[in-house]
């Protein structure tokens, strides 16, 4: 598999690396994958480059991706549904992402964005988790969804409820 390249301080291309990070935050254990590259360490007091030691560095883009992964892990640990869980649920009940979004009261692309980029808000993630875990909640929202015609609403509700029997 082709790996991403990053330019070091002296403009030498180097590979983007990844590693699993485990952090504890206020007693909650968070696990996610971070991306980084290696470059020579710089002493933060003297400003001198140490050519004997290479350390983790992050480009802005890498840092953005890492913070997104961290927030996603944090939200899941605090009770939000994970993107994998949402995908699994939709596939199980054959619900398109845009339909699932509208049923839950989001804009059309929200679920698709969450599945790609991760959970960006704890409240959103928790609402999805409640709906996934409680069939009576999701079938109620299906029945209240004006964007679906009655036949589709009944068909979907039946599919969800039948699975639970």
């Amino acid at each position, binding site marked *: 598999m082709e790996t991403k390249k990053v330019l070091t*301080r*002296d403009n030498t291309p180097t590979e983007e690396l990844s590693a699993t990070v485990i*952090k504890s*935050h206020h007693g909650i254990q968070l696990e996610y994958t971070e991306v*980084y590259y290696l470059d020579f360490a*710089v002493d*933060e*007091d*003297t*400003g*001198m*480059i140490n050519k004997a030691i290479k*350390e*983790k*560095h*992050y*480009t*802005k*883009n890498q*840092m*953005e991706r*890492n*913070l997104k992964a*961290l*927030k996603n892990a*944090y939200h899941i640990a605090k009770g939000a549904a994970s993107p994998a869980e949402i995908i699994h649920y939709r596939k199980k009940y054959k619900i398109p992402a845009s339909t699932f979004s509208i049923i839950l009261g989001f804009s059309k692309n929200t679920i698709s964005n969450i599945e790609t980029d991760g959970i960006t808000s704890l409240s959103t993630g928790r609402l999805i988790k409640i709906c996934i875990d409680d069939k009576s909640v999701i079938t109620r929202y299906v029945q209240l969804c004006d964007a679906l015609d009655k036949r589709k609403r009944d068909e979907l509700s039946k599919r969800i409820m039948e699975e639970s029997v």
Partner: protein
Amino acid sequence: MKQLPYTISNVALIQDFLDETKSRIANGVEITFTNKAGNELALLTLDFDIDISDIENAILTLSTENYYRGIDPSGNADFDVCAFCTVIGKDKVEIYLKYGLEVRGLQILLFSNHVPDYPMTQPFKN
């Protein structure tokens, strides 16, 4: 890292450092994070919902009044390193911000961004 005394030439030195930072960012240079700065920013994100744009904005709006410590005036280092005290994010969190400008290159390297462990004196303020 030494704290420079409040003199006209030292204020000018720090102003040059800030001008150079703004010029590099305006020309498309992005901030690079050290491992330590990355870990600290992760904490700020979880505790105060701070993101990279907050850090960038903080750097872009620094003035000499925010000065805390640095630069080594000898000019022998690979990076000019300077520390500031400023506020960031919608909660106006006070942070210690330390970054360096590569002398023979263009890198802007963030070393530290965290809530200060103790009150910070700002010698160029008032």
